[in-house]
């Protein structure tokens, strides 16, 4: 129990003393641990405790948000009054609290905070050994492990009371391989909304070995060419591109301000009929999931684009109130220190009827993007740029030699219209999405698919 229900009710009443339509309280106690290994040595091992609360008052389109690291009665009521101060005249009312049911339940088998540091240390050592065993070219491996267990309580003036305990575990491997003075890097990671039982179904050795293999493969790479060509996005990782290039434009804050290419286009064909884009925060134990979002709204499956037609946006409570609709369970925040905003959870394009082999075989000349290294998008225009850390040339329907230094550049809308083949080999990848200075865990996924006419920016011309 983080704080007593009575105290929560008192704080909400104090927040609305001077008016405001809505108030909510978020209390969190998060224990976290991170370990990292470099050069075979365990270094920078750290435990953290973040405990605190925030109170928000909404009045019209305006929010006042106060957070504090103290959760005693005096501090909470003070914070609540401060949040309510800006609200203006006339008292609002807080309804009595009643528990709300989650959208899904995410069991924690073995809570990471109950596991000794030594056990986690062994996991990352095993990852390191597997990476190094992959080949003599591996000169450097950095392995990171992090976990956290959060107890969360959310209460609001509409009477919603949500409690949840969330555990997350994540393992990351970054490997550098070298041959003849050339260096290349490889990356892989796994993570889930569960406890240490993650490693019953996923092996740390596989993560190390796969990152090493990517780095070694890229040693044989040539400089990528530039120009427009068909781009085949490998299953899993390509989802990041749609997350960035389309997902952010479907978040209601961007839409509300017209700072999105999708604003006012519900019902329109915005993508190829092969594209069905979904955001689902209720997938059991998936990295980007939760029983509730961070405003106590049960998570659910939201269809954003169906067969190319724009169906809906992702809302938090504030934007939903503004638009006169219900929240879609996408109000998320990094911690009690951050106000909730519309965010993706697990966002993915449904797999299609083709196979990856068919897609490659039917591509005469193109670029096969196997692993993306990250990217950026301008939501107002949908313009994006992505680095490709592992890419290949496709020649005459076959994957040819690896290419390095390539960047994918384009526009989200155009790219989604140019999807002309999708495969059924669906896979989800994990990451941390940054927006407005807040990082939240997100999943993104897709099957292998092809996008026609995408600009590949390479470095070949410069060296020629």
């Amino acid at each position, binding site marked *: 129990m983080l704080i007593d229900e009575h105290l929560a009710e008192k704080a909400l009443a104090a927040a609305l003393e001077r008016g405001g339509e809505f108030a909510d309280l978020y209390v969190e106690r998060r224990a976290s641990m991170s370990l990292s290994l470099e050069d075979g040595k365990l270094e920078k091992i750290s435990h953290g405790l973040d405990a605190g609360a925030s109170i928000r008052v909404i009045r019209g389109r305006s929010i006042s948000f106060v957070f504090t690291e103290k959760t005693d009665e005096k501090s909470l009521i003070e914070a609540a009054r401060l949040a309510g101060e800006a609200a203006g005249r006339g008292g609002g009312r807080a309804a009595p609290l009643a528990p709300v049911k989650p959208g899904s339940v995410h069991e924690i088998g073995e809570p990471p905070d109950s596991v000794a540091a030594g056990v986690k240390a062994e996991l990352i050592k095993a990852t390191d050994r597997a990476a190094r065993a992959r080949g003599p070219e591996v000169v450097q491996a950095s392995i990171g492990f992090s976990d956290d267990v959060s107890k969360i309580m959310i209460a609001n003036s509409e009477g919603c009371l949500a409690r949840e305990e969330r555990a997350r575990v994540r393992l990351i491997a970054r490997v550098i391989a070298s041959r003849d003075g050339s260096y290349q890097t490889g990356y892989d990671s796994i993570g889930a909304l569960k406890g240490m039982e993650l490693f019953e179904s996923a092996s740390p050795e596989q993560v190390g070995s796969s990152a090493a293999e990517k780095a070694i493969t890229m040693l044989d790479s040539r400089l990528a060419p530039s120009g427009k060509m068909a781009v085949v996005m490998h299953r899993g990782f390509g989802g990041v591109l749609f997350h960035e290039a389309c997902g952010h434009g479907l978040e209601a804050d961007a839409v509300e301000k*017209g700072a999105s290419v999708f604003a006012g286009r519900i019902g329109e064909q915005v993508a190829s009929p092969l594209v069905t884009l979904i955001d689902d925060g209720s997938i059991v134990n998936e990295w980007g999931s939760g029983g509730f979002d961070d405003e106590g709204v049960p998570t659910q499956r939201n269809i954003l684009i169906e067969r190319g037609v724009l169906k809906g946006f992702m809302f938090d409570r504030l934007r939903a109130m503004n638009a006169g609709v219900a929240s879609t369970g996408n109000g998320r925040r990094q911690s009690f220190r951050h106000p909730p905003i519309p965010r993706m959870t697990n966002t993915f394009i449904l797999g299609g009827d083709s196979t990856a082999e068919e897609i490659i075989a039917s591509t005469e000349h193109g670029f096969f993007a196997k692993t993306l290294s990250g990217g950026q998008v301008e939501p107002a225009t949908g313009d994006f740029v992505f680095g490709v850390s592992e890419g290949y040339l496709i020649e005459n329907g076959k994957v040819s030699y690896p290419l390095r230094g390539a960047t994918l550049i384009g526009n989200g809308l155009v790219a989604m219209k140019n999807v002309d083949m999708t495969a059924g080999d669906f896979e989800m990848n994990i990451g941390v999405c940054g927006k407005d200075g807040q990082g939240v865990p997100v999943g993104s996924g897709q099957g292998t698919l092809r996008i026609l006419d995408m*600009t590949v920016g390479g470095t070949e011309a410069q060296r020629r």
Partner: protein
Amino acid sequence: MLDVAKKALDVAMATGVEQAEAFAQLNRSVRVKVYQQEVEELVSSTGSGAGIRVIGGGSVGYAYTSDLSPEGIEAAVRAASDAMSVTSPDEFAGLPQPAAEFPRLDLYNPRLAQVPVADKISLAMAVEKAALGHDRRIRQVESATYSESDSSVAIANSLGFAQSYKDTSCYAFLQAIAEDESQMQTGISFVTGREPGQLDAAAAGAEAAGRALALLGARQCASMSCPVVLDPFVTASVIGVVGSALTAEAVQKRRSMFAGRQEEPVASRLVNLLDDGTHPEGLASAPFDGEGVPTRQTELIKDGILQAFLYDTYTGRKDSRASTGNGVRGNYRSQPHVGPTNLRLAAGAGSAAGLLSGVELGFYVMDVTGMHSGVNPVSGDFSVGATGRLIRNGNLSEPVREVTVAGNLLDMLVGIKKIGNDNRWVPFGGSIHAPSVLIEPMTVSGK
């Protein structure tokens, strides 16, 4: 906060560890975001916490807590010891000896706390208004923000260091959105200071609006190899990447394109790059770094020759060198690690316009995307998305978008032909004081 740090240090030393350090921080912050002349978001906070580092047998353990009660501190000390028990022993681990002298810096302005919140809201509104009033095509302003922080930091370690300092900082930021029949474009600006009276709202609003307008009608241009001028924002993102590659950690871990290049030319003779933890305007300035080592000025590149790397205590010991006062830490939740403070690329002789004057056909870069993901830190190869304008016969001409600029960071530094005198502080990706630069040739990939 010094009392909190000293008490936490005592609790840690009572467990029998060889060395310990406590870092305590109290931070008050206010952030106002306005939209269409109404407050969209007002965030206020008070937060405090401590980070505890313990060292024994060459192993380091770290824990932090936001709970400063005696029980909270004790739990953090136990957690730090638990972390220490599995860390690999490292002969170079250890705390710095206390220094005798520290730079005297004026980082605290009491006016920050005295200015009423209503005035800070007005400032954010003035920023938005200035952008909207600049031109009819400025349709709206996203994130017109005023943000401030008032913090006090104290460090106590078992070698006898015990000091604290206070600092204030604030900034205003906005992103203006320009729109015509064909498209939407965005432009940003920001101003920084130690109290809100130092922030010029009108200038920030007008600049963001001007940047967005300049890009309206942008199109992809043809691929070419040509001279390129980076505006100060873009130079700053390049310098940010260069700065991370100049840390001793990057070099020691063979993750730097500068490894083994000391005393060699790594850039054009025009390039003078300094890390300056003492600059009064630099928001990363402090009398001492995150482990209590005095900050200073460190020449990184002088007349194009690589001079030095940045060190914290640990990386310094590895190379038998003293820390350069670059053991940075963002807050009590993070362990100190080596990083730049304020990076300053020295201004050149000519004006920004002078950089364009000799260019017959070139590209003026106003924004790059993917700078961090798009650069290979080892080889320096990069490829980034860019927007900006073409340069024709020495003048800024039609706007350009959806192109990539690719090359190698080292080649780029060597290719710097002119540096402008239009230095400004850029608070993103570090605290960087950067001018415009002319580089040639570079590859621009478009259609």
